[in-house]
């Protein structure tokens, strides 16, 4: 049996032995590496439904910002299933994706539809996947033109356009500028991959996923899983987790038809507002 003194001697020898320091180094290295190299994740961010309100656009922007600021998120997949929305709201998300792309790879996976503003957001990403039957394109904008001012003796205004914003002719002129801006964004971001001319893009046609691949509107046919893998690949990840971001509030309902368009008009009143939005007119 060992006496207490001999045990102490053995322990003292162990604590100064090489294997102890190797083990210590490995343990400390393990603890340190968890802090320094957390498990990397790919985040999926939904961009779904019509993006009409500023609050909804802000929520998507907040998710993008969180993904940008988070150390363990190394790549982002935008899961787009949207007909677009208000022009300013879409442009806000587009610019936020561009900013995010400077730090982390962004890959888009298109579900049912990336039309109009939905596609505007998609082109900001590094790589675009879509399914064979996805609806893609609709590059263009529309506006509810200002109605002629109804004069009222009880309401005073300081200028001829105070109540209408602009003339109908000017609104159409601005609409053309919005169209040019949208087309320029698509041409810039798709670059040599794009096989459609400006005139063809401006037709605002919706294409099937397989057609879109041929026209260079997307990069590959694939699903959300492919997009996650691609994002990981671009981020240089061998092993990773997947984090799904979700809306705090419920995404707006999908259907946009002419009755909703009437609602849009009533929301905007006399002031013209531009939309990158696909809708089915009757």
């Amino acid at each position, binding site marked *: 049996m060992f006496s207490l003194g001999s045990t102490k001697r053995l322990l003292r020898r162990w604590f*100064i032995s*090489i294997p102890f*320091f*190797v*083990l*210590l*180094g*490995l*343990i*400390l*290295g*393990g603890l*340190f*590496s*968890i802090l*320094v*190299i957390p*498990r*990397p994740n790919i985040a999926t961010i939904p961009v779904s439904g019509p993006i009409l309100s500023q609050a909804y656009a802000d929520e998507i922007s907040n998710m993008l910002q969180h993904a940008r600021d988070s150390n363990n998120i*190394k*790549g982002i997949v935008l899961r787009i299933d949207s007909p677009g929305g208000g022009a300013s709201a879409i442009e806000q998300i587009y610019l936020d994706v*561009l900013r995010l*792309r*400077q*730090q*982390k*790879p962004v890959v888009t996976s298109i579900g049912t539809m990336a039309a109009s503003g939905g596609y505007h957001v998609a082109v900001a990403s*590094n790589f675009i996947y879509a399914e064979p039957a996805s609806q893609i394109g609709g590059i263009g904008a529309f506006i509810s033109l200002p109605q002629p001012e109804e004069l009222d003796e009880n309401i005073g205004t300081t200028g001829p356009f105070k109540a209408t914003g602009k*003339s109908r*002719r000017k609104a*159409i*002129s*601005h*609409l*053309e*500028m919005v169209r*040019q*801006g949208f087309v*320029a*964004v698509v041409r*810039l*971001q798709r670059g040599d991959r794009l096989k459609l001319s400006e*005139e063809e893009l*401006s*037709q605002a046609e919706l294409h099937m996923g397989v057609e879109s691949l041929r026209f260079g509107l997307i990069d590959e046919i694939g699903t959300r899983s492919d997009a996650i893998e691609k994002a990981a690949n*671009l*981020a*240089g*990840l*061998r*092993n*990773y987790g997947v984090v799904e971001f979700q809306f705090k509030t419920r995404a707006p309902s999908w259907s946009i038809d002419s009755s909703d368009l009437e609602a849009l008009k009533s929301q905007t009143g006399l002031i013209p507002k531009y939309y990158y939005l696909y809708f089915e007119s009757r």
Partner: protein
Amino acid sequence: MIKRIVIVLIGIIVVVLGRGFFFYSGFYTPLPSERTSYEDIFVPPAPLVEFSDNISDNISEEERTVLIDLAHDNNFDVEELNVLMLRLISRDLSIKFLDAEDDLKKELLGEEEEEEPLVEKEPPAEEEPPAEEEPPAEEEPSAEEEPSAEEEPSAEEEPPAEEEPPAEEEEEELPPDAFIIVSPQLEFSDKDKKTINEFVDNGGKLLLIADPTRQSNINNISLEFGLIFEPDYLYNMKENEINYRNIFVSDFEENEITKNLEKIVLYVAGSISSDEGGIVFADQNTFSSVIESRKRLSPIALVEEAKVLAVHDLTFMTEPYNGTLDNNQLIANIADWLASPVEEEDEEEVGEEEEKE
């Protein structure tokens, strides 16, 4: 001791590198940051052209009247014809409106409806003989039309009564020389169609206007003259006035409607199909939203020996779109056409040709 510290550090590094290699195979290389250059976005101002209205020499010196249809739930505001009406007024044309309660035959041909008085007067005739005197009595309350109330019973009995009052009234109510129908939503009855046909046959001019942005039943009357307003709109993606639906047109067939025109802009115009009636043609880069076969698309047509003019766009006639390029000239030409009489030579030639046939 240093040796031991080095061993610990190597242990740490090995683990960190191991974890790093477990998770990572490389690094992300960001794409070059490119933002759209919005400086290149430019929309040219509307090509406005100053216009002076030179009235044609062919205009009739006689007093002429234009009747505008408001009786068929026409889908337009009278104010939208202000520019055209101003041109007509400057050519000394009087403008009248056909309301729903007006009798088209009376207003257009200056003839009374034949059937209506008979229908009204039949029941009393069957019931009691004295009732023959009642119908005029019923019509008496319309004090404004006292003379006509006197006319009607006499009209029923004998024609000479018609000849008595006309001397004064016919001078006041000459039948119109032109009839304008804009986007009618109600159908024209067979009787109305016959009346309009008769009006055109007698040398009256008919201007048919529709617009793709407005519901209308224009084909109900235009088909009488071999004209079909297609349910489409024309667009040009290559060259347009700010918007693809605002098309430039510079291919004209020479006639009184297209004189002095170089280029016009139509704002959401539709095409008109006819048997060689087209006088204004869209270019090769202009397409129909509906018709896919390549044919000469014509938004303006002139048929029936230049007595029926069909225009499938109303907007170019309205402010401020009338001021673009030669639109004002086109409106002036239409006003000249409405104000000028049908050339008699042509009618005679047509008559001779018909006789030969």
